[in-house]
């Protein structure tokens, strides 16, 4: 399985002021970026948001400009199609505003996940969800689900590449079923394995004093 952590959302140890910043301000800044590009839709807002997010990743996480651009590679096909559609259906300035805005949001979100250790992110989510405990929410379980979701993105991207290469090796790359079927089966198997691994470690099961009868039989 290939490592897709760098491109698709996992923490990587590094240096720079973003690493020293607490998760909450980074999350607020990321949210503010999204609000700004949606609320004040204009070429100027998009340009400023792009410059800021690029600049912050280059200075704050000490990444090269090429490395920042490579982070966008997985989203490039969708962004390209969207830009083409907006450009042809409306105008190219509008395409810049929409696609540039989405790109800035992606980079802002990536700045958060790249420079925040998953456990710190989990702690932050737990704190955020804690007030909803009265309504029956389980903060630890919520945070765990979020981290597993983040973890599964690079895994599934790697699985897609492996499956596509296996299809190519058999000369079947033009048949979408040969790629989609093992991808879906692999995703389901991954979900099953992850669930079993978490259960085996007693994670996501709530407090010890809550131990209701269970009726799991068979693998």
């Amino acid at each position: 399985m290939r490592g897709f952590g760098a491109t698709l959302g996992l923490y990587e140890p590094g240096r720079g002021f973003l690493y020293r910043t607490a998760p909450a301000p980074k999350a607020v800044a990321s949210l503010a970026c999204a609000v700004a590009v949606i609320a004040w839709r204009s070429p100027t807002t998009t340009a400023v948001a792009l410059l800021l997010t690029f600049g912050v990743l280059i200075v704050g996480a000490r990444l090269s400009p090429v490395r920042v651009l490579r982070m966008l590679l997985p989203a490039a096909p969708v962004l390209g199609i969207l830009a083409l559609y907006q450009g042809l259906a409306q105008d190219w300035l509008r395409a810049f505003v929409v696609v540039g805005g989405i790109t800035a949001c992606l980079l802002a979100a990536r700045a958060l996940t790249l420079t925040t250790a998953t456990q710190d992110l989990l702690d932050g989510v737990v704190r955020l969800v804690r007030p909803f405990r009265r309504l029956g929410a389980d903060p630890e379980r919520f945070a765990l689900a979020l981290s597993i979701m983040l973890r599964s993105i690079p895994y599934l991207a790697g699985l897609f590449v492996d499956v596509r290469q296996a299809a190519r090796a058999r000369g079947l790359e033009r048949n979408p079923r040969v790629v989609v079927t093992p991808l879906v089966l692999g995703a389901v198997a991954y979900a099953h394995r992850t669930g079993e691994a978490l259960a085996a470690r007693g994670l996501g099961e709530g407090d010890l004093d809550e131990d209701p009868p269970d009726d799991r039989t068979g693998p």
Partner: protein
Amino acid sequence: MRTHPEGRTLLEPLDLLLAERRISVIGANGSGKSTLLRLINGLLLPTEGTVAVHGNDTRTMGRTVRRSVGFVFTDPLSQLVMPTGREDVELSLRTLRLSSGDRRSRAGEVLRRFGIDHLADRSSYDLSGGERQILALAVVLATEPRILVADEPTTLLDLRNDARVRSLIAGLDQQVVFTTHNLDFALESDRTLVLDAGRIVFDGPADDAVAHYRQLCSCAPLGGP
């Protein structure tokens, strides 16, 4: 105890008390070894009868049981769910409700104890098979369970890593119940169960059990149960 996924009996009724420090389970593929281990951890529940660990029934006290019984899978990648080893150990420690600082320092201690602190910040996918399996053991043992259950922990390893993991398991304070196809590994245990088609066909000292299993294998027709 029995368990039936889609109507098939995986384990015939059996009555077992597992008290020895090192217990191995050997048998052919599909003989019920993994099912037996999953019953101990409460990952599977019997359709009839009960499984209890230190007096806690896995059906009614499943969470308590799973917190005192660590489970190591054959493929360590199945159980390493965080991007790096340090974070995976920290994830295990979340069940102890420690502060983030305590969690971090304790994760460092655990990784040092297993001699893999230099791998703490590397992706699980970048580790060798042996390093992954040792990390998987560290992740499970971080919460200091009373029992370690390991499902073929050395099957995917080369000879050197096989020896590393075996020596690590031998040095543990915990009671260890493991399945294996490596008969030398089985010989290191105090007691060995031989499973065949969901039945325990031998239960006794490891050397006698291995001899019984070899005989069983030499008699079995190719492709048989």
